[in-house]
């Protein structure tokens, strides 16, 4: 236990929050919702993968990527290609002029499977591809951009353009990609019928465990020395550089991690939505994901994941009730967050907790410790956690 605590930077409070979040996802939601809604929540959780990637890349690394949809799409399309090939058996596609290839290829007068589709018949290749291809793309772009010291704003624009180009490309090459319709209609995964209710539960749990795994991995990275290097880069980039660090390597690294997380999310999305299309690649989704991350808390992995789930769930209910007003409300929420709560929901949680602690059962000296901790900490939470955790335990005692 102590080893785990140390690995995670000894943040007891963080672990408690993680536990609560895990309990919500693993116990409360499956009990509260039926298979249909759980499937929807699973799709929203797929977006949470991208949000936690953005926390690392944007919140810590200072690189705002407006093109995370590209990686989400790469993962989603890789998974979709595999599922589509499995669904396109010669028997199922017997009425096509070329049976055995995906339906949209047949409609587009393709008479054979393109060579680069072939490897996606293999599940292990697909898994490898959906992790490695986004990582490789992120590496190439990261290398080209960061080695030339492309700064935040420019980086945002370049990644935004990348997302635009990618979605136009997919739409334009519809014989190979399914075009604007995307790739739909999956039936089985390795022979297992994924359309049943029980399969939905299983996939939901896989999604949750992967998400929790990514959060743990992310937190481990952020609380290691690499995480402090990223903070230091934001504080005083030159000093880091002249302390012998290759700042670019660290930026490329988190960008790649964020890309891989996004790709996992994309694959989980394709699996749960039975569907992937260029709108999951383009500008709209890419920017929306940044918004989800900002609302949840750009400095907090848990906050961002929770924010993505909360906002999308709210959207599901509210946009149905007030289709016109929802868009405006969504914009206003974002404005309020940016202006008043740059730390998002996670920051709001901290404020509430601090307020509660300050007013209920804490002594003057504790408040002083708290204040000191806040001053010491970068986001009012970095180092304060230990102190606070100690005090919470002290209070319990």
């Amino acid at each position: 236990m102590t080893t785990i605590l140390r690995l995670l930077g000894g943040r007891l409070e963080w672990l408690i929050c993680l536990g609560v979040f895990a309990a919500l996802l693993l116990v409360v939601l499956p009990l509260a919702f039926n298979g249909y809604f759980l499937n929807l929540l699973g799709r929203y959780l797929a977006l949470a993968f991208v949000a936690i990637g953005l926390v690392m890349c944007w919140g810590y690394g200072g690189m705002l990527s407006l093109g995370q949809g590209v990686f989400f799409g790469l993962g989603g399309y890789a998974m979709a290609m595999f599922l589509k090939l499995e669904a396109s058996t010669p028997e199922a596609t017997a009425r096509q002029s070329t049976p055995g290839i995906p339906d949209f290829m047949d409609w587009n007068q393709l008479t054979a499977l393109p060579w680069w589709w072939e490897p996606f018949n293999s599940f292990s290749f697909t898994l490898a591809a959906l992790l490695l291809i986004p990582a490789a793309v992120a590496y190439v772009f990261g290398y080209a951009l960061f080695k030339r010291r492309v700064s935040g704003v420019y980086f945002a624009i370049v990644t935004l353009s990348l997302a635009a180009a990618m979605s136009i490309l997919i739409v334009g090459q519809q014989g190979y990609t399914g075009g604007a319709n995307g790739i739909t209609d999956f039936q089985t995964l390795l022979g297992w019928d994924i359309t049943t209710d029980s399969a939905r539960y299983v996939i939901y749990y896989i999604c949750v465990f992967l998400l929790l795994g990514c959060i743990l991995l992310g937190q481990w990275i952020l609380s290691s020395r690499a995480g402090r290097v990223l903070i230091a880069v934001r504080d005083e980039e030159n000093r880091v550089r002249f302390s012998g660090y290759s700042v670019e390597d660290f930026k490329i690294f988190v960008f790649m991690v964020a890309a891989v997380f996004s790709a996992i999310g994309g694959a989980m999305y394709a699996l749960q939505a039975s569907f992937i299309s260029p709108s999951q690649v383009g500008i709209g989704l890419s920017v929306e994901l940044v918004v989800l991350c900002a609302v949840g808390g750009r400095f907090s992995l848990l906050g961002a994941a929770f924010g993505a789930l909360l906002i999308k769930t709210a959207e599901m209910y509210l946009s149905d009730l007030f289709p016109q007003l929802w868009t405006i409300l969504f914009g206003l929420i974002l404005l309020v967050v940016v202006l008043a709560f740059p730390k998002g929901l996670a920051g709001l949680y901290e404020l509430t907790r601090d307020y509660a602690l300050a007013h209920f059962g804490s002594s003057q000296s504790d408040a002083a410790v708290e204040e000191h901790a806040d001053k010491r900490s970068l986001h009012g939470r970095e180092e304060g956690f230990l102190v606070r955790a100690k005090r919470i335990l002290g209070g319990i005692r």
Partner: protein
Amino acid sequence: MVANAQLLLSIEDLAVSFDGFRAVDGINLYLNEGELRVIIGPNGAGKTALLDLVCGKTRATGGSILFRDKQLRGMTENQIVHAGVGRKFQAPSIYESLSVFENLELTYPKGRNVIGSLFFRRTSEVEERIQATADMVGLGDRLEDLAGLLSHGQKQWLEIAMLLIQDPQLLMLDEPVAGMSQAERQQTAELLNRISQDRSVLIIEHDMKFVEQIASKVTVLDQGKVLAEGNIDRVKNDERVIERYLGH
């Protein structure tokens, strides 16, 4: 200058220009192991630009920078640091939101690549080394404090300590005593004399009194060129130096 076995840094015909403006224009400079050299000169003489070129912050347009047997031109900043060159900036450049200890820990010369940093652990060896280095600059009892809370002088010393912990063979300091009180200057002079026993030090400084306290040899730059070089007393009486820089 005569090359000999103890030569640490040899800069030859070094030049850089920004859109035609030749900030450094064919400078030659040789530095021995264990030497402390002060660079003086009027504003815009190319002093800071020279340090920038050596540490890789700007790219030279001509000439060579040999550090021991290595050509520093073309190397990235971090490679130059790994080769054994440390650079302190004019304004204190430290991580204000981290503690003094963490500032020093982050510059500890292990685990500076991505993988290494992920698995970096705070061992007792690291802690001892940090304590020793902090003691050296007089911050031994401030380790737990937030770096942002230090005084200006202390911040400068912290930055020097951050360089020292990497044990560089060449330390380059850009106006280390600017903005310091007289007492702090005195302490800094002592510190510099102490640390230059084990390594070469290159300092940019304006304060001639301070220069006299620490230097035996100075190089005077003007308009991107070396104007004079040699013993402090000789340079002080050089007419061109008086005319161009020391003034009346």
